[in-house]
């Protein structure tokens, strides 16, 4: 078990480093450097920077050093929590991002839970009552989730909501709570608004997990240990839920591990359509404006949190599969 945990931790760490490198590349990609853009920005608003000031800034940000050193300097600051200053907002990046990162996670995690809660029972039912009406309904739902990209679904839902219900189907808070400080009331408000975006986000993943659960359960149902269980004289429901479902959970949880990055990704696009105050719209703004520290930080933090989520899923696999717990491998 320890070997397994150690391996997953090591991988998570390496992934985080890789993400940081990629992020740094993205930050440095646009032509010119940070100081040029800063000067240009200032010039646009009328103020200017002297040559010495520019040179001093360059030294401070290490822009006159070779690229790998710049990366090291940046990482050093990042590890201390200093993510730089946003040029658009002229405030520290962390201030600008504020709650948005946590809201992004809230939406993604809500979608993950929804996916599990929906996909697991439906997948089991679909396999146990193959070819029944319930199975066909589940399969159809699956197809919708499969066929309609999440942003399209969000778009269609918004349109339908607007056209037929006359309401603006978007946002994570009611207007009065949007700017308010965090209270239980605000938390409750969030909970009320979470289901819709979470559903939209979850649909595609749900469809996929239903198919995986259904296929694996059908396979497991044919295996000898199921017959043994039946031959012991225990009831059908118990036979089903205790044995083959437990075995089919393994691939189910494994697949969910890679669901989390997908959900975080998807939340960005869905947020844009539904106007959610998450990281998505901010990232788009930052990229278009070439506010590279803001954009880079968002990408980095999103990546790290995603890796964390994936790691947790991996560890959950341990709980589900005694062979991994005791032997380190299935």
């Amino acid at each position, binding site marked *: 078990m320890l070997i397994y945990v150690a391996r997953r931790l090591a*991988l*998570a760490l*390496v*992934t985080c480093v*890789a*993400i940081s490198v*990629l*992020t740094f590349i*993205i930050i440095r*990609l*646009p*032509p010119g450097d940070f100081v040029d853009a800063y000067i240009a920005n200032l010039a646009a608003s009328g103020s200017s920077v002297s040559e010495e000031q520019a040179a001093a800034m360059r030294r401070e940000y290490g822009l006159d050093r070779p690229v790998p050193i710049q990366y090291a300097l940046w990482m050093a600051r990042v590890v201390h929590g200093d993510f730089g200053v946003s040029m658009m907002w002229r405030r520290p990046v962390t201030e600008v991002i504020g709650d948005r990162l946590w809201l992004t996670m809230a939406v993604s995690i809500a979608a993950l839970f929804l996916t599990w809660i929906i996909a697991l029972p439906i997948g089991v039912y679909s396999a146990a009552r193959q070819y029944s009406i319930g199975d066909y309904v589940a399969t159809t739902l699956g*197809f919708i989730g*499969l*066929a*309609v*990209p999440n*942003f*399209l679904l969000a*778009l*269609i839902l*918004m*349109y339908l909501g*607007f*056209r037929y219900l006359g309401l*603006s189907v978007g946002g994570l808070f009611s207007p009065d709570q949007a700017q308010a400080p965090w209270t239980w009331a605000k938390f409750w408000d969030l909970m009320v608004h979470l289901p819709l975006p979470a559903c939209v986000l979850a649909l595609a993943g749900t469809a996929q997990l239903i198919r995986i659960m259904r296929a694996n359960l059908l396979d497991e149902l044919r295996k000898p240990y199921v017959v043994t269980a039946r031959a012991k004289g225990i009831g059908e429901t118990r036979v089903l839920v205790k044995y083959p479902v437990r075995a089919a959970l393994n691939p189910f949880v494994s697949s969910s591990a*890679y669901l989390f*990055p*997908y959900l*975080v*990704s*998807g939340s*960005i*696009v869905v947020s*844009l*359509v539904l106007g959610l105050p998450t990281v998505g719209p901010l*990232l*788009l703004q930052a*990229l*278009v404006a*070439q506010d590279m520290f803001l*954009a*880079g930080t*968002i*990408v980095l933090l*999103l*990546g790290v949190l*995603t*890796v964390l989520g*994936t790691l947790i899923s991996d560890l959950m696999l341990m709980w589900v599969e005694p062979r991994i717990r005791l032997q380190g491998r299935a």
Partner: protein
Amino acid sequence: MSIAATSTEERFAQATQLQLTWWRFRRHKLAVASLIVVGLFYLVVVFADFLAVADPHATDARRSFIPPQGISLFDENGWNPHVSGLKGVRNPKTFKLAYTPDPSRKLPVRLFVHGYSYNLFGFIPTDRHLFGIEGGDAVDGVFLLGTDQLGRDLFSRLIVATRISLSIGLAGVALSLVLGILLGGISGLYGGTIDNLIQRLIELVRSIPTIPLWMGLAAALPNTWSVTQIYFAITLIISLVSWTELARVVRGRFLALREEDFVIAAELAGASQIRIILRHMLPSFASHVIAAVSLALPVMIVSETSLSFLGLGLRPPAISWGILLQDAQNVQVLAGAPWLLSAAIPVILVILAFNFLGDGLRDAADPYG
């Protein structure tokens, strides 16, 4: 004493892997139907300009937001496919000219009419289109799916968008295929540390959320690049992430095939590695790879669509489904002109078709896998 083999059994015993796969595939009606749908879509790609009616780039503010017009097939004189011409009506309050369909002006719709000029197959200059109106003013036309804000015919734009969206999908998949077969093959064939390393790499790539990364990379593309350059850059960016699934499939097949007797026999007979791979192993897993490609295509297409929808992928004047859907972002506008969403239909159709096709191929290639 033994039961004579019937001719069916003989055919069965002598069929190649590909033939067997094809026969199994034929039994899935849904998959076969999807194959036809996909075929039709790619026909549209080839004949895009021929099938389009109006110049997809031609704007005309007079005919903005015209609702979809049906083609009436009959009139009092019998068979006469036609549409209504447009008439300018001055709004008494704003004094602005608004163009609406005028049933009194009938413009005949015929086949193989003259329209805007283009190059058929890229090199035959012509101006014939499958159908269109004869006569009429510059503002008139057949607007099967209505027009957008700038007065461009949505139907024609949809048709032309199909070309770009589908071809990016193909190009992206081709790149992913090369990467996937290369890395997956090395991984599966050599095993050991190399396999381990590549597997870790795949896990790493899969753990990274793709859209933020794509957004970052795409936003970094200089504005000054031409449409074609951006096209290829986007293709590259998208395929960099999707090769993992293909690599997984290829590796799995290689691992399984390595132990097969016929491979060992070939090795013992002294065949070289390359020959073994190409001649003996490749035919066995060709069908699996085709299935995986089929399933990877919709992912590519959706990726491009999403990126373009965000404004970070292809940029106008290029036309793709994503770019068309960008116009539908504003709900208020959409409420007044719901036909702007029509690009959603081919997206959904293509995704469904490729997925059914891929599923059918995968089942046909390996019913027990």
